């Protein structure tokens, strides 16, 4: 790979809103129902039916806009995007074209330092249905998803690496989940991402020609697609070829992107204002009302964690990524003497035990706090801390009682530990010899054995000191 290229990325993220009902009718938006059980003449686009805008959709979109520092348009409208496809029963999608609800916002990411990523616009639109291709060649249409409300969040081309994209998406997702605008479930398609990517020589002022990769729905695929597409474009340029502006499909199996259609054959969507709907006019009072419903957002919490508890930026960022985790941390932090220890417990042990998509820590805040205290006070060592954390995860309870019951208290008493260390050294003359001949790391083995002899409950610092002393003799 030539090191003198950089990638320029802008994202279009589609997020399904968490409204109870669809955007233009009163059908349920619940995921996973039997095909075509959540649709009606309106979302099926039957002749003579008319859309009526669900006001919750506007509220949620405004929330998302305010949470990403957008300007909220006092006047916006809905437009028709016309194209034929069997998953689109009206043969047009109601979206917003030139007057979106929100514009000119940004969000901040932490990726080797703080960076601000511009948000061009957020607009509302309806989702299409789903086509199910049958093994025998037939295709079935499921219109349950038809009319589920979406917001499309379009970023500026401010992203420069797959890591930044990852950080941006995680931040955006957490904001949407915090505000209750979306459930953010990528595996259910609640969050889908189109990646616009171009490359240019580092330092160049002009952008290169971009390609668009559509409908990526996992962080893993997004990362792979970006890596592949970056390499493909750089190699093409290096070979003297030019990049074609086109839509490309990422194949999950091969990890490659394939051309779908170029700009020349792109559909002409014949956008025009939907005459069935009236313009959306929002007063300042309305926007203020919505603003009041926005909870403390990740950035605010992160700053507080760093200031109050002295957490590192990256640690604080990870803690706030999921609202439920941040809530659990905050509840426990109030009850412990050492919030940093608590944070590290959650970040290392909690994150390890949480399954993909899980955000619920099954340990009561007071027990988490107590566990952190036991560690901070030296009453248990780290290994025991991990062990107890895992036990509490399985069955919540009082960590002190658990430690007592299993006799897991840390042993710091020299008169107990010194004889154990002496006998370990006596049993391992070769290791002692190699340490003394200059192999410093040999000491670690002796410390480990002594810890083992202490049933894993020894105070590591005390053991180390004793072993060091014995070796010097």
């Amino acid at each position, binding site marked *: 790979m030539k090191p003198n290229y950089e990638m320029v990325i802008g994202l279009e993220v589609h997020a399904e809103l968490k409204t109870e009902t669809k955007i233009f009718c009163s059908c349920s938006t619940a995921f996973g129902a039997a095909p075509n059980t959540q649709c009606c*003449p309106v979302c*099926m*686009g*039957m*002749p*003579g*039916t*008319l*859309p*009526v*805008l669900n006001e919750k959709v506007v509220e949620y979109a405004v929330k998302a806009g305010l949470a990403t520092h957008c300007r909220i348009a006092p006047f916006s409208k809905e437009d*028709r995007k*016309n194209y*034929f496809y*069997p998953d689109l*029963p*009206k*043969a*047009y999608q109601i979206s917003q074209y030139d007057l979106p609800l929100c514009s000119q916002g940004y969000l901040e990411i932490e990726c080797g330092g703080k960076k601000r990523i511009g948000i061009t616009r957020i607009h509302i639109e309806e989702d299409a249905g789903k086509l199910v291709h049958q093994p025998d060649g037939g295709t079935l*249409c499921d219109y349950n998803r038809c009319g589920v409300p979406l917001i499309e969040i379009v970023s500026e081309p401010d992203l420069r690496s797959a890591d930044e994209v990852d950080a941006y998406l995680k931040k955006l997702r957490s904001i949407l989940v915090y505000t209750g605008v979306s459930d953010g479930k990528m595996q259910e398609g609640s969050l889908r991402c189109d990646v616009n990517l171009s490359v240019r020589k580092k330092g160049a002022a002009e952008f290169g020609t971009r390609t668009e990769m559509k409908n990526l729905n996992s962080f893993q695929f997004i990362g792979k697609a970006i890596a592949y597409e970056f390499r493909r474009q750089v190699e093409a340029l290096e070979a003297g070829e030019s990049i074609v502006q086109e839509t490309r499909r990422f194949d999950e199996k091969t990890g490659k992107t394939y051309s779908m259609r170029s700009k020349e054959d792109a559909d*002409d969507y*014949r*956008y*025009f204002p939907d*005459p*069935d*709907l*009236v313009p959306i006019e929002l007063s300042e009072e309305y926007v203020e009302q919505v603003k009041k419903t926005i909870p403390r957002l990740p950035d605010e919490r992160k700053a507080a964690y760093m200031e109050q508890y002295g957490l590192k930026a990256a640690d604080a960022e990870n803690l706030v990524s999921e609202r439920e985790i941040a809530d659990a941390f905050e509840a426990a932090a109030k009850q412990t003497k050492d919030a940093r220890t608590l944070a590290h417990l959650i970040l290392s042990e909690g994150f390890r035990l949480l399954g993909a998509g899980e955000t619920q820590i099954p340990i009561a805040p007071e027990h988490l706090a107590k566990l952190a205290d036991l560690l901070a006070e030296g009453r248990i060592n780290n290994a025991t801390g991990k062990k107890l954390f895992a036990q509490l995860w399985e069955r919540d309870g009082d960590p002190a009682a658990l430690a007592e019951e299993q006799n897991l208290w840390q042993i710091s008493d020299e008169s107990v530990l010194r004889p154990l260390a002496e006998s370990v050294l006596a049993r391992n003359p070769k290791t002692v010899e190699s340490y003394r001949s200059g192999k410093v790391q040999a000491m670690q083995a002796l410390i480990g054995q002594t810890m083992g002899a202490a049933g894993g409950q020894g105070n590591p610092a005390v053991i180390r000191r004793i072993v060091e002393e014995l070796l010097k003799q």
Partner: protein
Amino acid sequence: MKEICKMTATALKAAMEAGELSSREATEAYLTAIEEREKDIRAYLTITPKTALAQADAADKRRGRGEALSPLDGIPGAIKDNICTKNVRTTCASRMLENFVPPYDATVMGKLSGIAMLGKLNMDEFAMGSSTENSFYQITHNPRDLSRVPGGSSGGSAAAVAAGEAAFALGSDTGGSIRQPAAFCGVVGLKPTYGVVSRFGLIAFASSLDQIGTLTRDVRDGALLLNAIAGHDPKDATSVKREYSDFGAQIGREIRGMRVALPKEYFGEGLHPEVKEAVLAAAKKLEGQGAEIVETSMPSLEHALAAYYVISCAEASSNLARFDGVKYGFRAEGYENINELYDKSRSEGFGREVKRRILLGSFVLSAGYYDAYYKKAMQVRTLVKRDFDRILSENDLILSPVAPTAAYKIGEKIDDPLTMYMGDAYTVPVNIAGLPAVSLPCGTDGAGLPVGAQLIGKPFSEAEILRAAYVLEKEAAI
């Protein structure tokens, strides 16, 4: 009692209330009339005698208990076939919807619940046309002269009312589709202010212009029917949130001091002298009743027709895209893939005029042409509205012809779409501006064919329009 099939809905209602006539008797009389006259008129696409009689019997029972559902309870009427009727085939006179049976009612059908619905009426396919010759199924004949068209697109509605095949009918008016056939057949057509009547269940032609309205024997019936169907509908975002008082409240009041404007552009080139004469005579009659006739000018009129065809076709191209052969309606045979399914189904399912307008509409919205056509037309729309605003701020009403000629011969213009389009010049501006207007007979031409006059008013001024129309109706009858 007069012959039942010549009575107005108001008179039928009175007779039923007085116990002189049952809904069943009236409905049977109409069904008999339909049976006798349909072979000549061909106004109906679907006749629903069983439903009508069942509804009539139910209405009679209600009336017996003193529980009439609505002022039109038990009155036999018929519905244009682009208004969805639950469990009754609704075709839009298109092959595309030959077997389409809506599982829901249009909002107006709920408002009219209690009527004895005689059936569904012929029209130009998807309401595109001015002669009802664009129906996939049949040609409707003008009851006043069977060799002539009934006008369109609500030609079936106008013909049924004129022929005594329905006491009243619902139609829809996108560019004159109620007023022009009313004029051709010699009945009263009322196109309400945009947003007064819910469009839910009206199969859209051009959403920003479409409005359901009434075709009746006289002005009073128009008020009776509008009272029943008007009102805000939460299912139609463009329906206006407003309370309405009796639209017939001003009927019978004099018109002394009313200012009636005659914009000279409505009386210029292209208007048949005999039509002009009849409309000017109507102006004289209004003047004779104390109205002040004011000559004025409406410069935007000459651009209105072009703007109308751009806007209506643009909207239609999108509204009719859902008829793709995938979910319901006509699907062609012998396709290899989804694009062929679309192409063949739409090519075979739509008629020539519909396809012409879809093409026009797709063109004016396409990249590179949008500004020159659609955007420009929307600017003209603003100009037309301003002109009307100005004239109607200084005057109460505008009086104009409905169409440049009386009813023409079947086949006379069908191969000349442009001439056909020109016939809409006097009616489309009203739709562009969303105004209410009524069309009513004001005389006859040399051949004895009815000539219509159009009265246009400010938004929500239906009661004033009907007041003046009632005066003219009485005067014209003399």
